[in-house]
């Protein structure tokens, strides 16, 4: 019965997501663009600061496929994982600024700059080509959970545990997850132990197996568990209810008055790269976002539930706002903001 219910929920979600995808309109109207001075004459290199199997690796592969399909220019992905993205960022900053090297990165680059201004500011030290995934976070519990079944009963149960309740996330120092959890615990007055899992599988397994009581995650990363009716969201950390999660209350509805931090992934090029090449890359990546293959990928990851697209100006605004938010929070947390 549960399985059938899960399939029903999944079908409803797919229809809703499909509706979003059907309504998609590409904001880049030029279907083609002349190569400036023949650029690019050879394959581009995309530095990816994370492994090939994770969220960044997958979005890099999907965007590379989209851009190559559009332009015929091959893109070699160079994965340099480690140090929460700092290894890849450092390698990229020392690569030639000739337009042949592009970077994939996530909002960690913004939070790293907020904490330490000597780290590159993605909106200033780089030129965002496109932000192609923007998503929100949710709190999940097991669908067969009997101790609580919605946000209010969860908060009540957590408070009754006297700090013994647990939630799985990626709670590294200054991470989006830890900052958001601080917002939540401050607003609700509940005390909950955060268990940091840097890989997805053990994190999701911890909730499935009852090792933890809840999970902080983005919906695209746990879609298969939602489709299979293993997890259910009890709180959406976003200003409004996305249509796909119309039954799930937002943090504001639950009395938490803070601006949600978003998870975003995008593509960048050196700020010193030749202007005509940057212009071509902006067109290629922004139009690559519109390719059917990329849109199908974003659909499969719940990444079209809210508007995932930011052009260069929009990306700069998103990054600048995030940096300001992180910096304010870090100061209020007493962290050493440099």
């Amino acid at each position, binding site marked *: 019965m549960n*399985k059938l219910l899960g399939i029903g929920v999944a079908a409803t979600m797919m229809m809703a997501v499909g509706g979003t995808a059907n309504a998609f309109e590409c904001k880049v109207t030029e279907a083609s663009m002349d190569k400036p001075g023949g650029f690019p004459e050879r394959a581009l290199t995309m530095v990816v600061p994370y492994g090939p*199997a994770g969220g960044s690796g997958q979005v890099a592969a999907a965007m590379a496929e989209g851009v190559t399909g559009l332009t015929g220019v091959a893109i070699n992905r160079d994965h340099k994982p480690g140090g929460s993205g700092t290894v890849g960022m450092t390698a990229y900053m020392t690569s030639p600024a000739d337009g042949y090297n592009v970077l994939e990165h996530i909002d960690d680059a913004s939070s790293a700059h907020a904490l330490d201004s000597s780290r590159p500011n993605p909106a200033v030290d780089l030129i965002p080509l496109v932000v192609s995934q923007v998503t929100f976070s949710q709190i999940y519990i097991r669908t067969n959970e009997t101790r609580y079944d919605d946000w209010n009963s969860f908060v009540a149960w957590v408070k009754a545990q006297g700090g013994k309740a647990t939630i799985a996330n990626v709670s590294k120092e200054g991470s989006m997850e830890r900052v958001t959890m601080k917002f939540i615990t401050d607003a609700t007055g509940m005390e909950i132990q955060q268990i940091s899992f840097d890989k997805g599988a053990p994190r999701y397994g911890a909730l499935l197996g009852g090792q933890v009581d809840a999970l902080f995650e983005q919906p695209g990363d746990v879609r298969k568990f939602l489709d299979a009716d293993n997890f259910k969201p009890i709180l959406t950390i976003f200003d409004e209810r996305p249509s796909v999660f119309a039954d799930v209350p937002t943090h504001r509805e639950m009395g938490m008055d803070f601006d949600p931090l978003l998870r975003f992934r995008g593509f960048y090029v050196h700020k010193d790269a030749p202007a005509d090449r940057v212009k071509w890359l902006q067109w290629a990546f922004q139009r690559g976002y519109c390719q059917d293959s990329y849109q199908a990928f974003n659909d499969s990851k719940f990444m079209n539930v809210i508007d995932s697209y930011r052009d260069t100006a929009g990306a700069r605004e998103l990054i600048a706002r995030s940096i300001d938010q992180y910096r304010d929070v870090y100061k209020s947390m007493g962290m050493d903001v440099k």
Partner: protein
Amino acid sequence: MVENFLAGTSALFGDPFTVAIFVFGVVGGMLFGAIPGVSMLTLAAILLPFTADLEPAQGVMLFAVIYCTGTYGGAITAILFNIPGAPENAPTAFDGYPMTRKGQSGKAVGAAVLCSAIGGVASALVMMAATEPLANWAIRNIGPPEIFALVFFGLAVASSVGGRTIWKGWMSVLLGLLIATIGQDPVGGINRYNFGFTDLAAGIAFVPAILGFFAVSEIFVQAEKKATGQFDAPKVGMSFPTVLELWMHKFAVLRSILVGFFCGILPGIGATLAAFMGYGEAVRWSKNKEEFGKGKLEGVISSETANNAATGAAMIPLLALGLPGGALTAMMVAVFQMHDLEPGPLVFYNSPDLIWIVFAAMFYANLSILFIGLIETKTILYLLKIPFQFLAPLILLLATIGAYISRGLVLDVMVMFGAGILGFLLRRTGYSIPGIVLGLILGKIGEQNFAQGMQMVHYDLGTYFSRPICSILIVAGALTLAAGIYRAFSPASNSA
């Protein structure tokens, strides 16, 4: 089950193109697994975009086959040249390479071929019989505290391997544990011992460290012998293990299947821990512990049985729950997703045909290890006839490429040569290279799970003992350590 297996077999071998993909996966996995640095992951990453053009079952099956044969492939270079193709083959080198030095390369390779096949086939059979219940049991009963306890137990058991004295064995493990702490701490993300170098924030990667400690240090050792006129070229031993020899190790094989399967079923752990734990258990149960690390057949058997036993097991959390056990199974998730599928409970409901083709392919891929392995072994052993002055630069070149290629960092090449020099010096003084590698690999896994476990038990160590599996493993590890200390103070140890 038998009916489904036969249907999967029929679908696998009923289509010539599917057969071609299967053969490609078997051969490709073995080749890429055998070349240091260029692992089965490299092949999988290259092939990933092309799987979009395959049928879903063909794409997933290809990766499953590569996983089976790639795990075995690294054993060959580990045994012949002291170059483990991947971290999960490192324990194979502990005894495999000393066997080669003693002229028993054929015996070691033959045992690796046979035991990889046995471990893989056994694992595939259990996978077919009980995927869903086993996956559910594992995630409910095994959390970070249990994984930490398992690592602690493994370290306690195998810590004395390869050292001239027990103390030197332990010192080697502690050095490995110390090296494992370089880089960001696994929970808080705080940099440690990176001395301002950004690249060191990512820590010391396993592959360059293993290449340095094993391959480069070995070349330095042999070069010194060559320079001082003491060089003794390894003899090509074509004799395979006899049936009697293999029968004498039946309990080691069974034990390693159980250990490997148990480790493989844990999400995010996989074959590396399985190989080390399989080896460690062999040491623990042996009456001649001091023979390990010096060319004992049981060491090769235990390691290779365990790492291949982990392959089928790692498919269990992937297929039943959508939880990949390692990097290659994580890539398999991408293959599923390219075809609008998600691994997890619904796969059994929506795509039973795909599941049974994959199960059948893994079974036959493990059998293929036996046949192709035995054929190639006869040829590959002749590589040992290449003179040292040609072989050594070739190995150094391959190792350098292997160290660089995985992350594209010059740091990794420096780490490899640094580890080579350190290994060369430590070996001269009787410290244990396997011990350092053991500490490095298990240290990273152990620290992460210890920190997560401490958060889960609210920093109350006593709570660890309220979890039955965890407390059993910790007590067993502590008893093993105590026995080791007792032996260390005995006159026999101190006189070594």
